[in-house]
């Protein structure tokens, strides 16, 4: 039995949901960031599945751009995390929930 398009879409939905649950549950900022990366990857899988099943290269090109954006976001986001850690000495999101230092 050949894997259908719907299988890949269902897998992507499951991974995205796991990512969302992780973002809501986690208290560590770096763990939340990793769950966001998981969500980005699930969307990448959707793009490539559609690109493959409809023989259109646009999906894979968009995934290329998404990966570049994710790399840039990782660099800046981790820089922000380090800056937060320098000021607060804690990576707990609950401590950083107000904008007060």
């Amino acid at each position, binding site marked *: *039995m*050949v*894997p*259908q*398009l*719907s*299988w*890949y879409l*269902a*897998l992507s*939905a*499951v*991974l995205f*949901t*796991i*990512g969302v649950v*992780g973002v809501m549950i*986690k*208290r*560590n900022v*770096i*763990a939340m*960031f*990793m769950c966001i*990366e*998981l969500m980005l*990857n699930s969307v*990448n*899988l959707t793009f*490539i*599945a559609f*690109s*493959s*099943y*409809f*023989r259109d*290269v646009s999906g*894979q*090109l968009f*995934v*290329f*751009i998404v*990966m*570049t*954006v*994710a*790399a*840039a*976001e*990782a*660099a*800046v986001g*981790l*820089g*922000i*995390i*380090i*800056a937060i*850690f320098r000021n607060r000495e804690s*990576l707990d999101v609950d401590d950083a929930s107000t904008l007060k230092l």
Partner: protein
Amino acid sequence: MTAFLFILFAGMAIGCAVAMVVQRNPLYSAIALIGVFLALACLYVMLAAPFIAAVQVIVYAGAIMVLVVFVIMLLNVEAEERQPLRLRALIPIAVTLAAIFFAETAFIIYFVQASPVSLRNVSDVGLTSSIGGGLFTTYLLPFEITSILLLMAIVGAMTLARTGGLLSPRAAVVPGDQVFSREMLNRRNVADLTPVITHSTDEAKELLGVRDEGEAE
């Protein structure tokens, strides 16, 4: 055969994703996330996208996760402590919603008839040449914007990582014409922004009061 491979890689992806969310130590979460990326790369190969699979391993697993692991080790992040379970009334609601979600997923898998395109004919959509052709013709603008985005990310990361202000006591002054506002030289002056031009490193050092580490006070 491909169905077995799909179930294998999908199971690995879901298993590693759940492990990442459940783990309290962020380093173990990072390793589990690398497992997710590798499983997704295998799925991309199954979907006849070899270039994207290679880029996924190189960029995501090889660069982004290495950066994350560096930061975790740099900041010496410790494992989260076990939290007491609050809002116990929400657990049955969560289980119900999860069951509805999985029912929807099963519905999608078994009843939605996609256009009957099978992957038995190997397509050349995913080859590097096709992606390169598209990237440099139709999608040239996103490509250029992406390069500017990377430049912005580099500048942003360097700005965020700077320690201290403009006048760090161990500042190494760059030789050449230096222009300072007078306010910088004497902080007791109130808002005097007349620029002071110095023409050599020594002059600038003298005016700023910067001492090298080796000099005696």
